[in-house]
Every structure is written in structure tokens, then in C-alpha cells.
């Protein structure tokens, strides 16, 4: 595992956390999206997981291919911090969204 690799994995992690949050909210707000996930993957949750894994791999490959090691090393700490904040924000959004959906929608 190289520094460039860890940089690419961190970017992929950020994109995946954002994707999981967005697709979770959107799939509940847009029934057609949830239906598509069900029909394509037999279950909407399986679909979200498979797409998240695919996106993670895709972003890893894209970023790894274009990243420069010196820049990767310099940017890693801010990326990890961003991942922390986005995960906290994503988790809060998920809980608040489902509370809203259960009681006010």
C-alpha cells in the first residue's frame, strides 16, 4: 500500500459516504428510484451497498491514476478530517431524515 493508494482510498471513502447519504434520502423521496434499486438488485438496500462498493472502487482507480505522490502526502490529513466530518454529518442527516419521515412527512 503506497501513499498514493491511501490518498485514493481516502477520496473514494469521502465520495462513498456522500453517495450513501444521498441515495438513502433520495430513494425514500423518489419512489421510482427505490423501485429501480429493488428491481435491479432484488432489494433496495443491497442495491445501495453494491453501488457504494462499485463507486468506491471506481473513484479509487480514477484518483490513483491521476494523483501525484507529493500532493497526495500533503493532502491526506485534510482529507481524513473531511471524511470524519462528512461521516458525522451523514449520520446526523440519516437519523434526522428518518425521524422527519416517521413523524412529519
Amino acid at each position, binding site marked *: 500500500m503506497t501513499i498514493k493508494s491511501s490518498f485514493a482510498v481516502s477520496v473514494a471513502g469521502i465520495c462513498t459516504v456522500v453517495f450513501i447519504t444521498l441515495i438513502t434520502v433520495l430513494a425514500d423521496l423518489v419512489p421510482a428510484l427505490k423501485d429501480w434499486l429493488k428491481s435491479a438488485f432484488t*432489494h433496495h438496500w443491497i442495491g445501495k451497498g453494491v453501488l457504494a462498493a462499485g463507486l468506491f472502487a471506481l473513484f479509487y482507480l480514477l484518483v490513483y491514476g491521476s494523483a501525484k505522490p507529493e500532493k497526495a502526502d500533503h493532502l491526506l490529513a485534510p482529507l481524513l478530517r473531511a471524511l470524519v466530518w462528512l461521516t458525522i454529518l451523514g449520520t446526523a442527516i440519516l437519523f434526522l431524515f428518518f425521524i422527519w419521515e416517521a413523524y412529519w412527512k
Partner: protein
Amino acid sequence: MTDFLKFLLTAHIFLGVTGIILFYVVWMGLLKSPLAERKLRLSALWGVILFVLSWLTGGYYYATYYGKAVKPVIKAGPFPWAHSVIMEAKEHAFLYLSFLAIVICAVLYAYRENLESRPEIKTALTWLTGLVFFLGIIITLSGVVISGAVR
């Protein structure tokens, strides 16, 4: 519930909790100096493997049984929010864990023996690992609430 599904559910919980314990070991290890870097790498690697296995075992149970047999019971009972809020949030927040775990593992392997000389990266990684531990705890406690709502 069949014996196979009971096994999968038990495995999901056991694998997930053990994964959380391993990331607690990594988190505590990152707070120490000097770092026991080989131990941290191996703990993180096993943590990733266990989280992925927990995902697969729990996922099979969830996709094939929970929706048709457990969810209706919870929704018809005195605590319908255990599914509508807790389970819904838990099943999606759970998806974050394996990817966050892979990031932690990747950084530990990339900076093997050099992490102490990179305090900014070490600090950020420590925060991320602590987050994985606490998120794992929240997810586990959510599972306890959901199980309680079924009874």
C-alpha cells in the same frame, strides 16, 4: 426463523462487535507513543475483514427475512419507531463502516513505520478511528433497541 438465519444473525452481531473491539484497539494504539505499528495494521486489517463479513451475514438475514417477518411485528407493536427511525438509520449508517475501515487500514499500511513522523496524519487517523468505534457502538445499541422492540 430457521437455524441458518439464527446462525447468520448471531454471526452478524459477533463479527460486528469483534470488529468494533479491534478498531478500539487501533484507536487506543494510535493514542500511545511509540506506536505498535504492526499490531495496529493487523488489528485494522482483521477489523475490515470482520466488518465485511458482518455486512454479508447481516445483509442476507435482512434481505431475506427481516422485511417480511420482523418489520411487520415491530411496526404493529408499541414501538414502531424502532423500525421507522432506528433500523432505517442503522441499516444505512452501517454501510459507512466497511469503507471507513478500509481507509484506516490503507493509511496504516501506507505509512508503516513512518506514522509517528507524520503527526498531522496520525491525529486525523486517530479521530477517524475513534469515530468508527463510536459509530459502531451506536449501531450496536440500535440493534439492541430493535431486538427489544420485537419481543
